[in-house]
């Protein structure tokens, strides 16, 4: 509970360390893919950098989320696991939790918004998850279910084990591009960028870690400005995976401590980058997965000329119907 509502005092939060990420990597080995990172030289040339794409859309279930889920489930007490799991998600964490739960023999119930992409709801069900859709507050519905059915909450981002699992992306990209100068990461709740920053900064402090949010769902940027995690009254973005209306307590603390810069991009910029990815790089990313590239293509992030930039393409669950509309 503390993880979710954050009643504990700020400034006293435990921060992850590199060891936590390395242990996570050992724990989830064999459960997830080491995803490829490859250069995109023509696009990189246009941007004046050496551009590398970290293809998390090739991860199991089509996004980075199983990394955190497996780290969480495999470090949980067996009794907590067997009571059954509950969570809330727009889609990618939902599918990953359903997939991970099935792999370890647990049951998962996921609260999803009524507006969730149909393909993501179907994927979650296909992996064996029970989906509860609501028009109301995801969080309230989730907490009610947790109490009613005595379930174990697996928070989509504001949980140290989840964040440490996502951080394994950072370990891989450092090995794949040792001379990296900047890492650009899409930010929703902040779990992915928190883990990546913890993995990267202790090893190579000079690497700039940059987070990218949609203008219409900029909880983390606002939290930094207000120096406390904020809740947004409403969110409005095409990037459904980046739209949680609040920054986590843990994730905020990590972003504040380790991340160099947060940038906002418009939906138009995200869609431009989405089209560049499929037409030029042949990657069918979802809009959320294209947000990092949007910051580079729009010039909102300006890496040192000629430097190595790794852009994390965080997910590819776009579905044929949305894809053809957006093209």
């Amino acid at each position, binding site marked *: 509970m503390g993880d979710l509502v954050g009643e504990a005092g700020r400034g006293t939060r435990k921060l992850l360390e590199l060891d936590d990420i390395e242990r996570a990597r050992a724990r989830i080995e064999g459960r997830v*893919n080491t995803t*490829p990172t*490859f*250069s*995109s*030289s*023509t696009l990189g040339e246009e941007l004046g950098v050496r551009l590398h794409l970290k*293809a998390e*859309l*090739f991860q199991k279930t*089509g996004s980075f989320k199983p990394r955190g889920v497996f780290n969480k489930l495999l470090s949980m007490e067996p009794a907590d696991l067997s009571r059954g799991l509950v969570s809330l998600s727009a889609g990618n964490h939902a599918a990953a939790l359903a997939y991970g739960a099935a792999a370890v023999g647990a049951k998962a119930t996921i609260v999803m918004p009524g507006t969730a992409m149909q393909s993501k709801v179907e994927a979650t069900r296909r992996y064996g998850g029970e989906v509860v859709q609501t028009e109301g507050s995801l969080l309230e519905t989730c907490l009610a279910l947790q109490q009613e059915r005595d379930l174990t909450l697996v928070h989509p981002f504001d949980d140290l084990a989840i964040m440490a699992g996502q951080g394994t992306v950072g370990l891989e990209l450092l090995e794949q591009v040792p001379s990296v100068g900047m890492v650009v990461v899409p930010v929703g709740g902040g779990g992915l960028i928190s883990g990546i920053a913890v993995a990267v900064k202790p090893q190579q402090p000079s690497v700039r870690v940059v987070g990218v949010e949609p203008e219409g769902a900029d909880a983390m940027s606002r939290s930094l400005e207000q120096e406390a995690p904020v809740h947004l009254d409403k969110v409005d973005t095409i990037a459904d995976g980046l739209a949680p209306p609040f920054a986590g307590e843990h994730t905020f603390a990590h972003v504040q401590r380790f991340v160099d810069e947060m940038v906002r991009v418009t939906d138009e910029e995200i869609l431009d980058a989405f089209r560049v990815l*499929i*037409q*030029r*790089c*042949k*990657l*069918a*990313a979802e809009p959320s997965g294209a947000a990092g590239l949007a910051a580079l293509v729009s010039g909102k992030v300006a890496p040192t000329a000629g430097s190595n930039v790794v852009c994390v393409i965080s997910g*590819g669950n*776009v*579905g*044929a*119907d949305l*894809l*053809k509309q957006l*093209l």
Partner: protein
Amino acid sequence: MDTDVSTVLRPPSLEEIRAAARRVSRWAVRTPLVRLNVDAPAEVFLKLENLQPIGAFKIRGAGNALAQVNPAQLAQGVYTASAGNMAQGLAWHARRLGIACTAIVPENAPEAKLSAITRLEADYLKVPFDEWWQVMVEHSHPAFPDRLFVHPFADQAVMAGNGTIGLGILEDLTNADAVVVPYGGGGVSTGIAAAVKALRPEAKVFAAEVETAAPLAASLAAGRPTTVEYSPSFVDGIGGKAVFEARWPLVSRILDGSLILSVADTAKAVRLLVERNRVAAEGAGAASVAAAVAGLAGTGRVVAVVSGGNIDVDKLTAILSGSLP
């Protein structure tokens, strides 16, 4: 470097392919081999050559060919005959080297590929299909007497460069049972087969052709090079009306057969690749996947070479809508 019309091609040796791999690694992406996320009779893996800088494998062969030509000759410029991907491969290298490059293209060449050529600062010359075919047979066009012609497939250095795909496949999947390669001019299938057969003789290497343009299957059935009816489809990167004479002795010996796909099944594979594996493939690149998924290459560990991803947006949109472009 030219192979003239009468010369019978030989498979590149393992040494030539390994030497090519050292050159190619300077600019080509070491493309990932990933599992196809679909239940099929076979365990299907994808060699994602669509993730190369120009969206296709051609960067390998073109680069390997140019690396072996003296600078004075290169300075005269280069040209090729290509529906697009070899043109992009050559143009990409020409721009890197600062030399002129022209692509002779058939008149049905898709817009996505033409604009990619000009984006790479090369130009193109549209000619009727028969004239384009003639350039490939003769290895020259009268408009460019001084320039180096780089044949899209009937060239030893190009084949050796393509063979590096085979090395990469076996590094990542040492126990592959079969490899399926889209068959256009035969340059990539023979290059890959040369590498695979040298390292793992028990592995099979199949060509994939679309039924509307499948001269290899007809030739294999007849036991000699055979001309077939060619009808254009959205699968523009492969398929012709005949197997080149110079190619025939090699392909008929080194390949284990040609698998024929319908245009509709190829379109379905394009959709499958987008939905399940989040990559864009052009028709040619998806034909191998369609064959593997249908079980035509056996039930073991089958690698489908996704040779390219340069598909027009309107064609991709049509396929995602469930229709044939």
